């Protein structure tokens, strides 16, 4: 008897999964074609007006807000929670993603999502929200009116500080040419930077750390190698913490960090601010929200507001 009911239960599970499996093929196909269409639609006609009219009516604001956050220890998260006042009370239900681009992909694929990324990583697959009426941009970050911002820095151990390759590369980063690259997508950190003259050195530098600083470092690398063809620069990821500790232990020559050094990390390390960055709050392109106050952002990320129509 027990066996019979058990087998019946199993068979019902089977049938259920079979059905969903069959359903999956059809629905996922249709959904993928849908998303393709909407993708092309948004890229072909980026006129916000029609887009908004269309989607505002579709947007079901009674749905749960899909909160996505970075993992503990990430520089972007550090900056975001300390400035917005979320602090240590990050909403426990928020899904944790470990890379900037993972966050972007998640927000792109979920109409009810909200998250935050570095200003330099923004693209048109997601929508940026104004904070207290201020859009994140170089100007608003430099004058401080856009509040969610942080420094990008590189750090070098005291022994490596006298290494001429390291010195030359850092000279380049802090020069007018280097800062122009910082200013292109982020915000330059050095006023009246001196001109850099190519040194013609040869050798290899190992740079590693924050994935937020990575795109900037890639651009800096390309420009530097154009000026000094004999050089090679290897860039690895791992995050700010890894970059700092590996720079301190000498595994790499230059560490990248997207947060200030903690006191425990400062010993034996010298840091240079190479750019400023804003942290932008992002939502899905279908979301009609244009502006959020800092308080609402805080409430969303601490879990006090859980639906899009609760504010």
């Amino acid at each position, binding site marked *: 008897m027990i066996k019979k009911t058990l087998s019946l239960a199993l068979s019902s*599970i089977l049938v259920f999964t079979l059905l969903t499996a069959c359903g999956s093929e059809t629905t996922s196909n249709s*959904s993928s074609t849908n998303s393709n269409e909407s993708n092309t639609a948004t890229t072909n006609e980026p006129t916000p007006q029609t887009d908004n009219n269309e989607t505002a009516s579709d947007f079901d604001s009674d749905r*749960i*807000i899909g909160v996505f956050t970075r993992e*503990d220890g990430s520089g972007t998260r550090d900056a975001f929670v300390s400035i917005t006042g979320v602090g240590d009370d990050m909403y426990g239900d928020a*899904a*944790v993603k470990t890379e900037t681009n993972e966050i972007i992909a998640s927000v792109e*694929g979920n109409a009810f999502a909200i998250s935050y990324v570095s200003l330099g990583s923004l693209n048109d697959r997601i929508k940026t929200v104004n904070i207290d009426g201020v859009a994140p941009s170089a100007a608003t970050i430099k004058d401080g009116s856009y509040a969610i911002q942080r420094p990008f820095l590189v750090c070098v151990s005291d022994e490596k500080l006298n290494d001429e390759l390291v010195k030359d590369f850092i000279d380049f980063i802090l020069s007018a040419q280097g800062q122009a690259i910082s200013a292109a997508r982020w915000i330059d950190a050095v006023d009246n930077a001196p001109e850099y003259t190519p040194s013609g050195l040869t050798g290899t530098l190992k740079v590693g750390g924050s994935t937020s600083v990575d795109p900037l470092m890639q651009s800096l690398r390309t420009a530097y190698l154009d000026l000094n063809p004999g050089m090679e620069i290897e860039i690895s*990821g791992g*995050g700010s913490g890894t970059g700092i500790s590996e720079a301190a232990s000498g595994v790499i020559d230059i560490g990248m960090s997207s947060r200030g050094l903690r006191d425990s990390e400062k010993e034996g390390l010298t840091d240079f601010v190479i750019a400023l960055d804003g942290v932008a709050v992002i939502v899905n392109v279908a979301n009609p929200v244009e502006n959020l106050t800092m308080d609402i952002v805080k409430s969303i990320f601490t879990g006090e507001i859980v639906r899009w129509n609760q504010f």
Partner: protein
Amino acid sequence: MIQKKKEQIMQVIFQIAALASILAVALICLFLFAQGIPAIARIGLFDFLGGKLWRPTVAEPLFGILPMILGSIYITGGAIILGVPIGIFVAVFMARMCPKPIYRFLKPAINLMAGIPSVIYGFFGMMVLVPLIFELFGKRFDMMSGDSMLAASILLGIMILPTVISIAETNIRAVPQELYEGAIALGASHERAVFKVILPAAKSGVMAAIVLGVGRAIGETMAVKMVAGNQTMLRLPYEYFKGVRTLTTNIIVEMGYVERDSLHFGALIATGVVLFVFILIINLLFSIINQDKKSGGSK
């Protein structure tokens, strides 16, 4: 004389090679425990294993891995519920019921399934399963996203299928033909003979297949990380539409940003130690089952 020397030297070389696996296990234990145990000691064993909160970076950090232990158990349990019955039925199908031409296609297909890298499964889960679950259940169950225990369980259920199938099949095949023939002679139909006589006779082998499946599911990292949501919240078993973090994903999610030689780092290694102990327990179970099988077979 030279010949004899050569023999002896080679024997020593073989012996040394044979010691390599012992050395490897010893090193793994030594280094994991050397880094993990002090961290557990500093956190406190009960605060570590029974702590409900994982707050590694706050001023007074909390390192409780109970949510991850439960997460691993839930997801593995879900995978077993979904994967094992199907796996056993497929094994029965392959061993006793399927026509030869189908078998010739099915066998390599199952082998291929075992060989597909977990990133591919994870990618598939991310692109197909997660959006599908969000679309089907998102509104009804107030899901934040498709990243959920359900997604991870379904994906793992698929991933353990080849393990369960191939081991269960071998064991079902190993059941003596006389048992089957006896059942048929007594008037049982083919299906009845297979289900009521052969399957029970292969019970310990099927159990072994399940245990190995559990091992595979508990240890899976990349695929789970891509679909499970990775929240450190303590979940209840019925919160299947919410995300969770497992022991394996706890390591992979936070290793990137961790400060070397900090307590946080130690706690992550200690998570690995707990996982290791889990696996040792499962191995022990497996060898007990195998022992049973052998003694049962000799009777």
